[in-house]
């Protein structure tokens, strides 16, 4: 073939697909890099507050606008959880994946507990009731999440589609029912105290938060591991959402009192986690696998 003929041959460009997929203003990779940034910032803020903030000062600067807090909890944690739980519900009913069922149940438990805690912070005895509900809900949700993450390594789908609805009702009903039961028992004073105003967290709360924190972190890492295999935007944003929730739980652990700067840092981290879970859904809307893939790796 002559040189001029060679020039006329159109060679397939292995990078062309990547170019098309990156046609947005910011590439998915860049967006994800930006998405990671809040994690070290929140960790650093909690560490700094933990070092520089004496308990007396923390109590004096505590900020608890009850309506705002309840609204934020409802909007960013319950609202986002409902969206994720709904998509998981539809997904489970059509695909039968236990991973999705457990994930949806955990999300629902966490969102419902957060909202209930938000609205019960105000009444007398509220801080303990709210903290009990929130932390118990977090532990319960974390059990679902870790089970969900672990099933990605082994379990398959439920082939019997007739059993899916009862299982779904059991799992979602169980998630909501547990939080409702904890709420009732906490209001009745039937659960040992999690938080004593003036004295701070009890050992029980610290133990529960520690276990929840560990399980949330483990779930986040396991889902992130899956992301490294698939490069799925959904997995990235969802594991980041769990990471931010983990940071929020860590803030519970280190916080001196309800509404102090550490608590608010944690709350904002969890709210951002709620937003990240919606971004995960948005990734699904856009077709999920939006990572740049060249022909070579396709």
């Amino acid at each position, binding site marked *: 073939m002559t040189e001029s003929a060679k020039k006329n041959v159109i060679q397939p460009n292995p990078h062309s697909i990547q170019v098309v997929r990156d046609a947005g203003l910011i590439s998915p990779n860049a967006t994800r890099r930006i998405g990671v940034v809040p994690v070290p910032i929140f960790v650093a803020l909690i560490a700094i507050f933990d070092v520089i903030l004496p308990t007396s000062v923390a109590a004096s600067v505590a900020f608890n606008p009850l309506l705002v807090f309840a609204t934020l909890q409802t909007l960013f944690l319950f609202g986002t959880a409902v969206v994720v739980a709904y998509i998981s519900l539809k*997904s489970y009913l059509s695909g039968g994946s236990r991973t999705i069922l457990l994930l949806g149940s955990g999300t629902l438990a966490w969102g419902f507990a957060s909202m209930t805690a938000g609205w019960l912070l105000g009444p007398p005895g509220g801080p303990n009731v709210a903290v009990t509900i929130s932390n118990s809900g977090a532990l319960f949700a974390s059990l679902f999440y870790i089970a969900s993450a672990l099933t990605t390594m082994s379990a398959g789908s439920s082939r019997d589609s007739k059993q899916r609805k009862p299982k779904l009702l059991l799992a979602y009903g169980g998630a909501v029912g547990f939080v409702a039961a904890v709420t009732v028992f906490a209001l009745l004073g039937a659960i040992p105290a999690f938080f004593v105003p003036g004295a701070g967290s009890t050992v029980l709360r610290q133990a529960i938060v520690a276990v929840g924190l560990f399980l949330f972190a483990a779930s986040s890492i396991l889902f992130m591991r899956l992301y490294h295999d698939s490069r799925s935007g959904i997995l990235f944003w969802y594991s980041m959402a769990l990471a931010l929730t983990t940071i929020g739980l860590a803030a519970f652990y280190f916080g001196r009192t309800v509404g102090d700067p550490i608590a608010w840092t944690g709350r904002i981290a969890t709210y951002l986690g709620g937003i990240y879970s919606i971004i995960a859904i948005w990734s699904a809307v856009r077709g999920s696998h939006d990572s740049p893939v060249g022909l070579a790796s396709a």
Partner: protein
Amino acid sequence: MVRNKTGILELDEMLRGGFMDKDAVMVAGSAGTGKTTLALEYLVNGATQFGEAGIYLTFEQLPDQIYRDAENFGWDLRKLEAENKLRVVCTSPDLLLEAEGEEQLLGETIKELQPRRMVIDSLNHLEMYVPRGDLRKEAYRILMYMKTRGISPLVIWEAQQGLDSSYMVTQAGMSFLIDCLVMLKFVEINSSMKKALVIMKMRGSDHDKRLREYEITAHGLRVAAPFSGYEGIITGSPHRSLTQEVAGAWDNAFTKTKHKQ
């Protein structure tokens, strides 16, 4: 309210108990969708399960073919005929279209059998013998003949289904004669052809509006679950709803990786 059960459990559920008594029912669909099977099953179940005799009037097949095809589903039409529960009438459309044709052709059989059900397979054959404009008039005359004799007519209409899988039964201009319209059609879902059934219309009764998948099994028609999560099936361009698309992508993200491990 008297209902004529088809004996096909899921279809009767869709019809809220069965076809309304003496309603003119049309089963429309393209070739191979199972119109004749549904109609025969309606007659056989009527005779064997509900004690209602029936007549199967066909312009299309010879009796031997019908007996043979029915046997494949386990229906012994000869036995039902011997028991005076069913009559298979194979004739030419022009005989039916003659003056008093329906009486000459069916009068004796109706007196003898006292049928409650009758199937005409199919109305399209009449088209060959009457001007287009007269088809509705003839169909009306035949349907009224049956109704006035206490018979619930079920007519078959072969509707064209183009490559885009869409067609309009009403184009035949007979929808006003019909009280209940059951439409059968092929749909392409996930690169495979499936059969879909929908009740397009049912005068004076509530009915299931959902499009449901069905299969022709060794025992007749079996109606399965609705095509949940799909839109545009009737118009011939089925696609999953946005929610289902998102749910599918959500599922893929968490389960696809599993398979790689």
